[in-house]
């Protein structure tokens, strides 16, 4: 899939292009639309996260990228090849150039670790001793050289996924598809495997598509993210842009799993029991002196303010989060202060004061 001199190959030229793709499955008593008119680019060299709850269609979408599934309509391009126009025989050759790792690792139990990694090399016709050398290099890269002669069942989950990664990289593919690769692992092992994927991206220059329902995986390694819901990509873009200001419930739901957002109704109720003032939640933006600016705006109108809930996290080295303030002072002054914030482009949500006054500003 090298493309010497292909027309205007910009640094961000897409490696994978999904155009108006739909995939319908026939099931007993009807059809299920797994992927619904999705268009998406995977840029060369990036890590693209595709996040969604189970059943959102993300696993089907990623299988369209290596033609394990063929779309009902639409076109899929990888590099210069249009997968949707190739015969099965050519697709097998294309698949050899696309690595894939899985939630359940899918290692061959009948083979040793080394033989698992060697399997795609055998398929590609790589002979001894070249094959042995590549296997050793790959196992060394994932830190499992000493396990070469073990069998998969002797390894921990994290080790199995490392073998899966070594196997997926055996043919030096420019693209790696990771289907819920960390979902069966504990948090610590997840972090290790994500760090390894980041290394694969940065040191080997492999473009990676990460399918996950875990926000943590996206936060840790993705450059861009696509949020899937009911077969559609409902939001996509730079990870910070999407998650610092989610526009859909699906995206907002994922944000809440790792970042402090507006307090839930239950939390609000608890807060109101101990705080008699008006509660206002301010969306944190990544700007130097952000909280100082907020405090100044309140002080200028003579409004006392205290942070009672919330937090600031970082996403791609930028601040993101939400802070809920308790404001005490005349209602008019508070309204003026909120208007001042809005004028500065700072989003604030009025959570109200009394229990019967919970409408948004």
């Amino acid at each position: 899939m090298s493309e010497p001199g292909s027309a205007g190959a910009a640094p961000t030229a897409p490696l994978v292009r999904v155009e108006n793709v739909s995939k319908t499955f026939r099931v007993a008593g009807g059809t299920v639309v797994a992927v619904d008119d999705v268009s998406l680019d995977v840029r060369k060299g990036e890590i693209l996260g595709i996040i969604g709850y189970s059943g959102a269609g993300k696993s089907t979408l990623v299988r369209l990228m290596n033609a394990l599934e063929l779309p009902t309509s639409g076109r899929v391009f990888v590099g210069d090849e249009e997968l949707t126009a190739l015969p099965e025989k050519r697709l097998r050759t294309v698949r050899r150039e696309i690595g894939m790792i899985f939630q359940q690792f899918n290692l061959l139990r009948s083979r040793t670790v080394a033989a698992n990694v060697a399997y795609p090399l055998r398929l590609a016709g790589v002979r001894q001793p070249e094959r042995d050398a590549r296997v050793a290099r790959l196992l060394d890269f994932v830190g499992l050289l000493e396990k070469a002669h073990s069998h998969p069942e002797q390894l921990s989950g994290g080790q199995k996924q490392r073998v899966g990664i070594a196997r997926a990289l055996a043919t030096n593919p420019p693209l790696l598809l990771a289907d819920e690769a960390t979902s069966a692992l504990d948090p610590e092992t997840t972090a290790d495997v994500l760090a390894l994927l980041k290394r694969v991206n940065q040191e080997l220059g492999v473009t990676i598509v990460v399918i996950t329902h875990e926000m943590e995986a996206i936060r840790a390694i993705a450059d861009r993210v696509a949020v899937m819901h009911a077969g559609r990509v409902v939001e996509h873009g730079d990870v910070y842009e999407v998650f610092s200001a989610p526009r859909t419930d699906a995206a907002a739901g994922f944000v809440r799993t790792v970042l402090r957002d507006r307090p839930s109704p239950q939390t609000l109720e608890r807060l109101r029991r101990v705080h008699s003032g008006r509660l206002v939640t301010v969306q944190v933006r990544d700007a130097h002196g952000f909280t100082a600016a907020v405090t100044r705006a309140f002080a200028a109108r003579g409004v006392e303010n205290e942070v009672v809930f919330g937090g600031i996290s970082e996403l791609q080295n930028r601040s993101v989060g939400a802070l809920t303030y308790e404001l005490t002072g005349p209602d008019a002054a508070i309204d003026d202060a909120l208007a001042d914030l809005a004028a500065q482009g700072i989003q604030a949500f009025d959570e109200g004061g009394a229990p019967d006054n919970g409408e948004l500003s």
Partner: protein
Amino acid sequence: MDDFIAALPTFWTAIGQTLYMVFIALIVAGILGLALGVALFVTRAGSLLPNRAVNIVLNVIVNIVRPIPFIIFVAAITPLTLAVVHTYIGASAAAFAISLSAAFAVSRIVEQNLVSVDPGVIEAARAMGAHPFRIIVTVLIPEGLGPLVLGYSFIFVGLVDMSAQAGVIGGGGLGDFAITYGVQRYNWPIVYITVAVIIVLVQLGQFAGNALARRALRR
């Protein structure tokens, strides 16, 4: 007991005939049944080479042949036996009939074992660009091997059972010996001795199968 000692040379021949029939059948039925079982499995919907028509035809054939009692099956395939073995009596003719009949039973056992192979592993091989035939040989069969070996040792018992009925077409063997020298002459000790030998054979077969399966499963 004197009768038994007198019949001893025939007894040794009978053991040889049983072993001959069982081992020929184990190998031939093993290979034919494996091929048929793999075909049954891979032509299923959603499998490696889905083909509804082929799958239905294979299933119907297997379902027709399997319930036929062996003793009738042997008689029914006489023309085929004649064409392949050039005779329809004797141990070789019996081995042929046993092989054919057992192949259909083996095919179901193979199919059932392959269903239990993790579909994720097959998908991984597809994702690596492997041809379906290559997946069958290098992934499907090796991954299902442990349970397959156990299935084969299960079939071994059935083969010994079938070989005991081979007497009707002059196949000889321990079953024939027990009937001719034991049952028909009311010589029960001969029947018991023969049955004991058959039990030992079955035990050895099962033992060997278990040992091989343990190796394949590494447990």
